[in-house]
């Protein structure tokens, strides 16, 4: 069975909510919609305090090239545009909306019927994806329309769909593939048309046999779509790792996947594209997994963007008593939250509640030079060197050791028997090297 060549780890899967169907979460009384929800520049609000908004109405426009539109996830009144704490723990600009009823924009098709026929042209698809604020739902939230615009001189050959969900605990994509298979396929077809490619491959890890079977069945009706079962290995969901696993092509350092003729989209994104293009529905809700070993009722919830994470936890049976850490995202790459009163954004794939004991890091001891971190690094880096250089503030060496190639998957830190904070220092190194490079290009 296929997988990527270099490195990788296999943490305990702990997929506790696999058999829980996607449940629609009740609309909250108030939503807080942050203005920076995708990679790139924050969006610019187009509504004012006191304005009445409907579900799906454009409330903030992405004006920069890498930036995305944001739509209201509820109907009601704009309470204020003010700073609110987001998942980083810092206060950033956000739109507060008080909910009144659930009135949708008229042009959104709310029927459940499957619309197979794609009437839009290539250019229309790209502009639709841009207009309706679709971003990559795998976690990085890269604006999807940018990925659909293939740079001149390059040619996309294969579209790869990321249904790997290699992070332990998370099951949102898994449930989506099981429940919305047909819609997903149409979404893939739309992406294929937008990219002008003839072949698409859905990569799914071998621990989701039901999803593989289900999608293989449906794929018979759709030309050019293949389903590829992959060996379970973290971080297979990384763009470069997935391309390596599926196509056996290696993306050169510092280059984009288009260099080897591939474009990677998440299955969640494909579903959002289906809804946007066929049903005219902007991206304002997503599937979020709420899970943890102590959680009473772990599950997958369809939730409106801007809903407080607290409501999600309440729905899953409340905050367990000995919760030590709340993580947004998966356990490997997710980020610990400062507070539960922060909103769900487009990139929130899961909420993870760790027990006090699981949450504690071990005290780091000295490096024993075992080289495990080097063995598991999927990018072929030497995490131990990078971390040491960063700790000693030798930024030139950090750069020379290709720190910017690091995908921050955390395999090194996960596998380190001495419990050293490798990734933390690499992140610091990446940040500083990034600054240095930017300053250099200014001069």
């Amino acid at each position, binding site marked *: 069975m296929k997988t990527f060549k270099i490195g990788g780890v296999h943490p305990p899967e702990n997929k506790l909510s696999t058999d829980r169907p996607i449940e629609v979460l009740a609309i909250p009384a108030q939503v807080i919609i942050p203005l920076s929800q995708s990679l790139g520049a924050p969006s610019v609000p187009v509504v004012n305090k006191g304005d009445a908004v409907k579900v799906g109405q454009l409330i903030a426009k992405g004006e920069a090239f890498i930036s995305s539109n944001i739509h209201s996830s509820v109907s009601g009144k704009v309470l204020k545009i003010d700073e609110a704490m987001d998942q980083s723990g*810092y206060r950033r600009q956000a739109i507060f909306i008080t909910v009144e009823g659930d009135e949708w924009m008229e042009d959104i098709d709310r029927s459940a019927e499957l619309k197979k026929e794609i009437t839009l042209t290539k250019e229309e698809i790209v502009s639709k994806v841009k207009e309706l604020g679709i971003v990559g739902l795998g976690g990085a939230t890269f604006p999807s329309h940018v990925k659909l615009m293939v740079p001149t001189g390059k040619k996309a050959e294969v579209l790869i769909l990321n249904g790997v969900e290699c992070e332990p605990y998370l099951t949102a994509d898994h449930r989506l593939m099981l429940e919305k298979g047909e819609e997903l396929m149409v979404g893939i077809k739309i992406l294929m048309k937008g990219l002008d490619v003839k072949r698409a491959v859905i990569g799914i890890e071998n621990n989701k046999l039901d999803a593989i079977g289900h999608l293989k069945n449906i794929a018979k009706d759709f030309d050019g779509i293949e389903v590829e079962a992959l060996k379970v290995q973290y971080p297979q969901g990384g763009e470069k790792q997935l391309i390596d696993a599926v196509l056996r092509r290696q993306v050169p350092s510092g280059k984009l996947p288009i260099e080897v003729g591939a474009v990677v989209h998440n299955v969640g994104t494909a579903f959002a594209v289906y809804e946007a293009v066929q049903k005219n529905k902007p991206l304002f809700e997503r599937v979020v997994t709420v899970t943890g070993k102590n959680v009473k009722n772990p599950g997958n919830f369809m939730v409106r963007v801007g809903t407080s994470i607290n409501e999600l936890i309440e729905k899953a049976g409340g905050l367990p008593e000995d919760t030590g850490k709340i993580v947004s995202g998966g356990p490997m790459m997710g980020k610990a939250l400062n507070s539960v009163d922060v909103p769900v954004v487009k990139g929130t794939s899961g909420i993870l509640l760790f027990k006090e004991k699981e949450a504690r*890091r071990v005290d780091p001891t000295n490096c024993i030079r075992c080289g495990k971190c080097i063995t598991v690094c999927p990018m072929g880096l030497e995490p131990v060197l990078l971390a040491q250089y960063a700790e000693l503030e030798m930024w030139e060496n950090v750069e020379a050791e290709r720190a910017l190639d690091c995908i921050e998957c955390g395999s090194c830190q996960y596998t380190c028997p001495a419990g050293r*904070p490798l990734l933390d*220092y690499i992140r*610091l190194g990446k*940040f500083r090297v990034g600054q240095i490079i930017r300053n250099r290009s200014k001069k």
Partner: protein
Amino acid sequence: MNDIIIYAVIFLGVVGAASAVILYFIAQKFKVIEDPKIDEVEGALPAANCGGCGFPGCRGFSEALVKSVNEKQSIEGLSCPVGGNDVMAKVAAILGIVAEEKEPQIAVIRCSGSKENAPKKINYDGPATCAFAHNLSSGESGCPYGCLGCGDCVAACKFDAIYMDEVTGLPVVKDNCVACGACVIACPRDIIELRNKGKKDRRIFVSCMNEEKGGIAKKNCSVACIGCSKCFKVCPFEAITMNNNLAYIDYEKCKLCRKCVLECPTGAIHELNFPPRKEKVAEVESNVEPKIEVNKDQSLDTKE
């Protein structure tokens, strides 16, 4: 036997003499002409090589000084923070000009978010580096402007002039601070500022950097500047400016009248090294940062 010694001495003597002649001509040919004043100036500098002047070490600074004098007959804008006016006067004497007097400066910590004033809301267990903690989140107290307490400033100090107070969790600047500015650069939150030492070492400053609205700032820290502008209104010398919900006292304009200290509702304005006030003796018992002073025995009890 004697022959061997004689030949060896003669031979080596000739080789040595020939080499000396060659070396003499090479040295003449590739002579580096350097202003002897550079060496003299370097001798007068403290040789701490701290970089506080903005040049790479004391040698670099002496070169810059001599160059500046040769070019524009002044050393305006160049000064050694470590040596202060004494050293600069010596340097000026060597260079044959008159140095301008500069007010001595010291670093001040503009945060009072001690463990008591800004209690922990979350636990940070990552590497003990402020630079990393700052990138990761808003900090344990939730104040995105406050001190993170990991001690990057202590690590940066080459003069052992700053240390972390175990009780408050905040850095404290000692009197031997030379204002080289290394800690100012090291702090990712720009909490440390170089201010004039002031008359008799007396200083007044706003010990807060929080630009959030009053209510939010107060939620995280009981001694935050809430931007109420009371000090701004009471200051008779227009030394205080208000910017983004934060007061700032200009040390050039401040006449140390201490009116703002009394006016501040949260106690964010600190006075240092003043004699106790007559009317309110109780409050100013210990005149060094009264707001964060904690009884050491007490805090030890709570730790246990």
